[in-house]
């Protein structure tokens, strides 16, 4: 292997800080991604955002309290507990405010999280000398500086979150999908909502020291959203989300090494790029697939024109007035709908099946009746013929019944050709 590739791909793994970053980041990313599936399915993304910011006062107060109780010692527990209380409080405040009066939920979220975040900033800056939390750190995290204790905390929280999701998979899914049904079989929907909220808070606390408050929201939402584009099954979605989360972390760390940029920022930037790629290329729900699908749709009018031309005796694709390309596309579609005979199409000629003849007769009749109706309404024969070319595609049976009655059930059209009878198949 060339030296260059070695430096690019292997060399970073020889540093303990890189390994720790990759390990810690991946652990958090997996838990975030799986939890994130429920967040986006429940359309709670905004709440995740709110929650992560609202943690600040909880973390600050927890730190102060633990410092007062155990000077200089054990603070991780205080941080977690403070954050949990803040999370539950946030979610209760939001649901109270949005049920209390005129304030809608999104407004309530905006008010509560900025308010609590501001309280956190005030606490942190007022007690600066007592609290060893750096606001910049809260925003950006420091993935290359994670301590073993951070790693253990992350692993513990991630295990708890994944275990809860596995154990309560059924309950979380049904409460997300159909809360009314969930309540009717006696599930505690409110408790399950709080449970989700608490898990978001836990994972935020564990992850903020690594990637910061904004990027943790990204890890919760972006990989899950990408997975949502890739599959229709919730278990698959969770696995895809986890894979994409880990991929973001590892590729992001490489990227940050190569260009010498912030680790947390690089992780989320790569995650974002992965999402964009997925958005374009996803097999079923991607933009490219949607575009291709739209292109493949043959206009109904083209099909009807081919039917009518074939009915009138035109039997070569190359003779179709619309041009051979459009006619071929329409013809292929019509074979699928059993309107055309496939064997003769392969030789470039058009042969209607019985079903095709029936449909074609209906379009013919529509054209002739429209023509008759328009002439009766005062149009010249030439103008009526041209207008009927467009209007014949409005061939709802009830319209034709009205026209036939109006023209006193004609058998010949204005040019003296027979009008096919209305078919009885309905």
């Amino acid at each position: 292997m060339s030296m260059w590739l070695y430096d690019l791909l292997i060399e970073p793994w020889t540093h303990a800080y890189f390994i720790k970053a990759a390990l810690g980041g991946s652990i958090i990313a997996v838990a975030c991604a799986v939890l994130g599936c429920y967040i986006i399915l429940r359309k709670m993304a905004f709440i995740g955002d709110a929650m992560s910011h609202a943690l600040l006062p909880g973390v600050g107060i927890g730190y102060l309290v633990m410092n007062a109780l155990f000077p200089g010692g054990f603070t991780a527990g205080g941080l977690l507990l403070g954050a949990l209380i803040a999370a539950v409080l946030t979610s209760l405040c939001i649901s109270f405010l949005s049920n209390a009066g005129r304030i809608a939920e999104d407004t309530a979220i905006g008010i509560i999280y900025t308010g609590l975040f501001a309280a956190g900033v005030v606490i942190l800056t007022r007690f600066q000398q007592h609290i060893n939390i750096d606001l910049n750190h809260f925003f950006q995290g420091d993935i290359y500086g994670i301590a073993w204790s951070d790693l253990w905390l992350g692993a513990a929280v991630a295990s708890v979150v994944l275990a809860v999701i596995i154990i309560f998979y059924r309950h979380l899914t049904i409460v997300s999908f159909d809360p009314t049904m969930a309540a009717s079989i006696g599930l505690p929907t409110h408790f399950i909502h709080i449970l989700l909220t608490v898990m978001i808070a836990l994972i935020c606390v564990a992850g903020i020291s690594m990637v910061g408050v904004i990027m943790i929201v990204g890890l919760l939402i972006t990989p899950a959203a990408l997975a949502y584009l890739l599959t229709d099954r919730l278990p698959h979605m969770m696995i895809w989300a986890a894979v994409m989360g880990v991929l973001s972390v590892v590729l992001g760390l490489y990227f940050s090494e190569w260009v010498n940029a912030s680790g947390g920022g690089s992780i989320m930037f790569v995650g974002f790029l992965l999402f964009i790629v997925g958005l374009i290329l996803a097999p079923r729900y991607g933009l490219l697939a949607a575009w291709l699908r739209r292109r493949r749709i043959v206009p109904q009018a083209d099909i009807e024109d081919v039917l009518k031309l074939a009915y009138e005796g035109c039997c070569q694709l190359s003779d179709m007035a619309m041009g051979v390309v459009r006619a071929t596309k329409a013809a292929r579609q019509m074979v699928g709908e059993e309107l055309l005979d496939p064997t003769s199409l392969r030789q470039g000629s058009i042969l209607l099946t019985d079903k095709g003849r029936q449909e074609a007769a209906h379009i013919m009749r529509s054209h002739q009746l429209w023509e008759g109706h328009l002439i009766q309404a005062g149009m010249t024969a030439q103008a009526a013929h041209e207008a009927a070319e467009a209007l014949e595609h409005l061939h709802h049976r009830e319209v034709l019944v009205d026209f036939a009655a109006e023209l006193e059930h004609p058998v010949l059209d204005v040019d003296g050709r027979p009008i096919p009878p209305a078919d009885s198949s309905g």
Partner: protein
Amino acid sequence: MSGPDQSNSAVSIEHLTVSYQTKPVLVDISLEVPRGTVVGILGPNGAGKSTIIKSIMGFVPRDFGSVRIFNEPVDDACGLVAYVPQRGQIDWNFPVTVRDVVMMGRYGHRRWYQSMRALDRAKASEALESVRMSEFMDRQIGQLSGGQQQRVFMARALAQESEILLLDEPFAGVDAATERAIAGLLAQAKEQNKTVIVVHHDLETAAEFFDAVVLLNRRLYAYGPPREVLDQGLLAEVYGGKLRNLSWRQEEAT
């Protein structure tokens, strides 16, 4: 004791009054649904039909009155009622398959630490079979027609094996095949002595689907056999100005 036959009552509502904030939605509703009947609830938009369904599930705070399910207060009676939601309440992009949805009907039969058993899977397949949706087992629910989606939720309600089925507008916007399937299921449920309460909006078909009809518009206007309840004068009173459509149909018939 005199009065209605208590032992035969599935749902018993007495003086039920419900309001949202200050707006009264249901005023002094009393009605008794005997076991094994198929009841239609009719009324204009905003009449409180969905609200009465929700109060039979015990979800709505009552201002006054009581709802009893098999003579138990509704707040204690849990799992006796299966519910088919209104179409608009479901997120059709949710990544669940037909099979997943029907299995949800079995969740109430297992405690949280128990896993689903072969019996549950069998009941789910049976329910899917009875609405003729077995071949779509592995489809995501968004990739079905409206009528097929309705049938899946019917199957879920059947898999619940509840004594009481509540359906909120199952006939809204479905194709003829689904309408027949749902009507067949109503009949089938009745044969199994189940009690079915259906919110319905089409006055014309009410008589053929239901044993009894409730005419509701905030107050209870009538409750009884369809032929008696679907009386022109009463309908005009309940639907007020909104009856134009119906009278037009009458003119056409005469």
